[in-house]
């Protein structure tokens, strides 16, 4: 009873290896593979607009995954993630513009450089906890953003910088259709990396630090190392995401990396489910699609009788903003533990159906 898991009865594991697979059941693995194959066809099926949304989900999903490492797995709130995202974007643009490094290499390189910066800004984590740390990351957010606006040599100052399009061995990828596959590849790799990380030694250590740092220390875990490391890892994925973002937009502007973006990242992982890898992607999709669908609604609303009645006119934007806020609130009221939690409950329900209790 207490040991209830969702592995179907009769599914006995005969080796430890079989018990440590990425997916709990073969069905779920096959479903995932089928899903990926299906997504591969997306560029040929969906229109450019939907494609661009998918790309955004992928890019932000990678960065949000990084945030989930530091917030969800290690339990340290970070309100400065967008600044690392931006750092990755500027770094990749800088590396390719200044040194002519092929974009193909710039992206992981940007991840590594950002990770180093993340480690530096993660240093306060050695001493600070909880909200004190959270506000220190907020400070990092402002400091980095100020740096972007100031460091002409690096970012070009306050004017948006341009970034090369993605190229691979001299072959330029142009357009969203091709870039989609780049993002997809990165998403798969990043999500696999983190899945592995969490089921191996250092990942477990991060979670242990979150759950009970005092006993984690007694278990031989170096708190300072792992608290800081989690910021480094988070920054790595933020950097990779940022780099992908830079070469997708081919423009890097200071403005995309403010505190509001940091907060959206947080919303993604909270709505998806803290400490849930697939939840991150779900939450990202939610937060990317929500404003879009509200936009769509507000377009539909324009000049409609409701518009006339309320006298909205140019204020439709405010209605849209409010709707976004309200939906997030309503969502959290009903599902404070996130989409991943709801997903698990649905699965549990079907597994036990019709004996739901």
């Amino acid at each position, binding site marked *: *009873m207490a040991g209830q898991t969702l592995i179907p009865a009769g599914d006995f594991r005969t080796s430890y290896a079989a018990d440590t697979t990425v997916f709990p059941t073969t069905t779920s693995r096959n479903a995932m593979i089928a899903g990926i194959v299906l997504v591969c066809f997306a560029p040929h099926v969906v229109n450019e607009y939907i494609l661009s949304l998918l790309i955004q989900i992928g890019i932000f999903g990678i960065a949000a995954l990084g945030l989930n490492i530091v917030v969800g797995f290690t339990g340290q709130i970070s309100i400065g993630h967008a600044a690392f995202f931006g750092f990755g974007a500027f770094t990749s643009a800088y590396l390719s513009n200044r040194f002519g490094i092929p974009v193909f290499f710039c992206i992981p390189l940007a991840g590594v450089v950002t990770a180093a910066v993340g480690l530096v800004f993660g240093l306060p984590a050695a001493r600070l906890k909880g909200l004190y740390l959270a506000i220190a990351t907020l400070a990092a957010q402002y400091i980095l953003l100020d740096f972007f606006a100031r460091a002409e040599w690096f970012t070009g100052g306050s004017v948006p910088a341009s970034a090369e399009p993605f190229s691979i061995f001299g072959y330029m990828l142009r357009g969203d259709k091709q870039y989609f596959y780049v993002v997809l590849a990165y998403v798969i790799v990043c999500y696999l990396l983190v899945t592995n990380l969490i089921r191996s030694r250092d990942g477990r250590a991060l979670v242990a630090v979150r759950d009970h740092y005092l006993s984690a220390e007694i278990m031989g875990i170096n708190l300072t190392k792992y608290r800081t490391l989690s910021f480094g890892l988070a920054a790595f994925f933020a950097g990779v995401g940022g780099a992908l973002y830079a070469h997708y937009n081919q423009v890097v502007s200071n403005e995309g990396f403010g505190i509001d973006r940091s907060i959206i990242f947080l919303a993604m992982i909270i709505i998806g489910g803290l400490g849930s890898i697939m939840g991150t992607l779900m939450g990202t999709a939610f937060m990317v699609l929500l404003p879009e669908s509200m936009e769509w609604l507000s377009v539909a609303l324009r000049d409609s009788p409701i518009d006339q009645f309320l006298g909205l006119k140019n204020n439709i934007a405010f209605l849209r903003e409010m709707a976004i806020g309200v939906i997030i609130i309503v969502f959290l009221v009903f599902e404070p533990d996130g989409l991943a939690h709801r997903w698990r*409950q649905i699965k549990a329900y079907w597994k*036990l159906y019709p*004996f739901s*209790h």
Partner: protein
Amino acid sequence: MTEATEIDRPPKATAPTAAPLLSVRNIEVVYDKVILVLRGLSLEVPKGAIVALLGANGAGKSTTLKAISGLLKTEDGEVIRGEILFDGERINGIDPDKIVRRGIFQVMEGRRIIADMTSIENLKLGAFTRTDNEIAADIDMVFRYFPRLKERTGLAGYLSGGEQQMLAIGRALMARPKMILMDEPSMGLSPLLVKEVFSIIKEINRDLGVTILLVEQNARAALSVASHGYIMEQGKVVLDGTADELRDNEDVKEFYLGGAGDQRKSFKNLKSFKRRKRWL
């Protein structure tokens, strides 16, 4: 998890007393919407009595107490069937703070003192629902019971495990409730204090007329103060009776009292296999 379709057993009539102060009728509790923990549990606590609730780890004793005090809600738990009556009124579904105001106070498992306050502040909060002005006198009373608490003027979070347990019990005394639900009050206390705590339990029951539902692992001590006892297994009451009946039950002797009669079973020469008998 076993099937939930099992037919409810009718609640077994307990010894006929006058109106019971608390009666729990056939409740089922789930955690997180799916994990069924209590499966049709019933029990009654007569007014002015001490009733012991015994059972193995995970039987659902703490869950039962939390269901009564309403604290289940804060742990994603829910009473999905059955009802709980206190003083003849249904109390399930009511907010925990209202239940406290009606006179049920729970001493939670694991002390749960407020770590960043001093002992005195903790005690004052125990009396939160009271409006009379004997609070100061009662604080003195608690300090008389547990002189050690008086010496420790720092934050309660720095108290030793046992000291925190004293504070938790003291807090319940401060509330002057009609009924106290005690979850393992003797846990972590030295033998001397265990005796003392049980004599305090007896005392407040006798002198102040407080009804007590006592969850204890120290079955021997619990049955020595209680008039009735219930034994739980896997979310159900499997045996109940007066304290004397239970003390004489062979199984109870074997699993809860550690051997027959007053002869303590030794921990020496333990066998590496175990015999397990379960009622269910």
